[in-house]
């Protein structure tokens, strides 16, 4: 089975590096960036299955990033990562088309299953894309 390509976007570099390594150990092909701008640049250049996106970031915030991702690649799945249950920003993110959200600190098993489900959701939709 082809490894799922994950892009981790968070302003905490240490978090990004640890998550990346753990996901890689679990058979994902994870990459990481620390700003919204970098994430968009990466997505311009490379293919990716799921984006794991922190909502609160300096500069280009998570909500703006998801809006642009959906503009750029509407079917690319985004899973939101949030530091706290600020209902408002999560709701906004979900309304912008996020697949799901996770609260920090996140359990690796939950992350794996959400990422897998998100990727599956995309795969499930793939025939429609092909047919359309």
């Amino acid at each position, binding site marked *: 089975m082809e490894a799922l390509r994950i892009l981790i976007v968070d302003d905490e570099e240490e978090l990004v590096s640890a998550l990346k390594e753990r996901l890689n150990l679990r058979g994902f092909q994870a990459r990481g960036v620390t700003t919204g701008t970098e994430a968009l640049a990466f997505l311009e250049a490379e293919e990716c299955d799921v984006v794991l996106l922190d909502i609160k970031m*300096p500069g280009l915030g998570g909500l703006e990033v998801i809006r642009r991702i959906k503009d750029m690649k509407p079917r690319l799945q985004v899973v939101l990562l949030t530091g706290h249950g600020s209902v408002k920003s999560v709701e906004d993110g979900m309304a912008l088309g996020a697949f799901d959200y996770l609260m*920090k600190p996140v359990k690796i098993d939950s992350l794996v299953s959400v990422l897998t489900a998100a990727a599956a959701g995309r795969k499930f939709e793939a025939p429609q894309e092909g047919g359309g």
Partner: protein
Amino acid sequence: MTELTPDGPVTPGLSEGEERSLVPGRPYRRILLTATLSVSFVAIVPLIIATGINYLQYQEAFREEQSRPMVRFAANGKLALEAFLEERTAALRFVSQTRSYQELTDPSTLGEILEDMKSSFGGFSDLGVIEADGTQLSYAGPYELEGRDYGSAPWFREVIRQGIHVSEVFLGYRDFPHFVIASYRETGRGEGFVLRATIDAEYINRLVGSLLAQPGGDVFLLNHQGILQTPSRSHGEVLTPAQIPSLPFSIQTELLEIQEPELGPRLAAYTQISGSPFVLAIVSPGGTVTPGWTGLRRNLLFFLFGSTILILAVVIWGSHWMVGRARNADIARAAVYHRMEYENKMAALGRLSAGVAHEINNPVAIISEKAGLLKDLLLLSEPLPPKEKMLDLLDSVVRSAERCGGITHRLLGFAKHMQVQTETIELDQLLVEVLGFLEKEASYREIKIELDFPEEAPEIVSDRGQLQQVFLNVINNAFAAVDDGGRIQIGIIEGEPGTISVWIQDNGVGIPEEHMSHIFDPFFTTKKGAGTGLGLSITYGIVQKLGGDVSVQSQVGVGTRFILTFPIGKPEN
């Protein structure tokens, strides 16, 4: 909980010590004293004046009542004495005019005339004819007074001058108190003689004594020099100065209140006996203070005393009650303020905690992932990961844990109960600490914070917790005012000697002019549903409490500048 707040539980409300410090006793005692004195004064002074007027009026009425019988006695006595003297003067004049010189100088005829006068009028004791040179030619009476010279006697000179004269009482040659009625008859060309009758003082003594209607009083005659002309009961012997004040000559009856040596105050009436040198004096039997007056006076004084006590009691009770109410209201207000201040702090804390939760979740997430990765490496990879890799991960865990610790400590420092504890504070460090709470928000919102601190760290003696709250409130407001990407400048400048100012300027929306006068009012807010309206009013209250001052400059669309000025030394209160 005790570990979190070493100074005691975080509760609103006032401890006893705080209550005392908020509501010092001294001003209330002064208010109490002022109120009691002023109200007592306006209540008691009119009472005293009214009672005094009453007292004087009653006294006047009683005196009037008392003096009326005295005046009547005096008038009756005057009439009786004047009639007595008039009769005898007329009789003497009649004799002197109707009898010839020869008849009168004949001792036997003169004796007959004396007997006639004695039987018709009474009171005459002898009769004599005196030549114009003062030699007594003839004499009828019990004494051997023929040939005596009266040329130098005062009465003799008076009778030559006036034609008729009633003398004062004197002793004369006979050495016995008597007085003289004399009539001068001119016989032609500077020649004439004096017919003189003497009247026994005893006779007029009885007459005067008979006037005494009531026992206990005194009646006597005086001359104009105050010498007693008749004996008195208690005012001296005849021909001695009377122990009673004399009055200047007056044709009317005069009343005088006199002080008797042992009897106390008495009323004395003086009246002039016309045609004589005599003044009739009557001294009232009873004191000037009658039982009726004594009773009334006692009642008046009792009324005054009782009313004063009552007024004082009511005033003292009322003042205590009112001042007590005021004090309780002040305490209640202070407690409400204290609670407001506390709730504002809790609200600020609530706002912060959301941010802090996010902030703290980042290092926790790192710890979680680093530890998870370490576990993954130990479980999933063969052989064991290199030592450096594991140490690196553990370092990261420790660093993140320290980050968490820093955040919690900052929060705890803020959550401490706001008891006024003065200490030396470096304002720039304190501001940096406060900004620590907000730096994440600043970074997310790309708000630029520019600090303009002098190189020498300015130190002030103040309360750390209160200053934190003040700066947090004002900087929070600046954050609320600016758009994302806005700018906030914070600076410290030395103000007037002994003070230091912190200014906080934003380039936000500004405060409309119509709001400027309300921004420090409690519950004034423009953040619909989001603000309590307490932040600035509490900020103002705290700054005042710390002995400082707040000023604001603002322009809509340009920004707002708050200037907080604090004394460098310890605040006075």
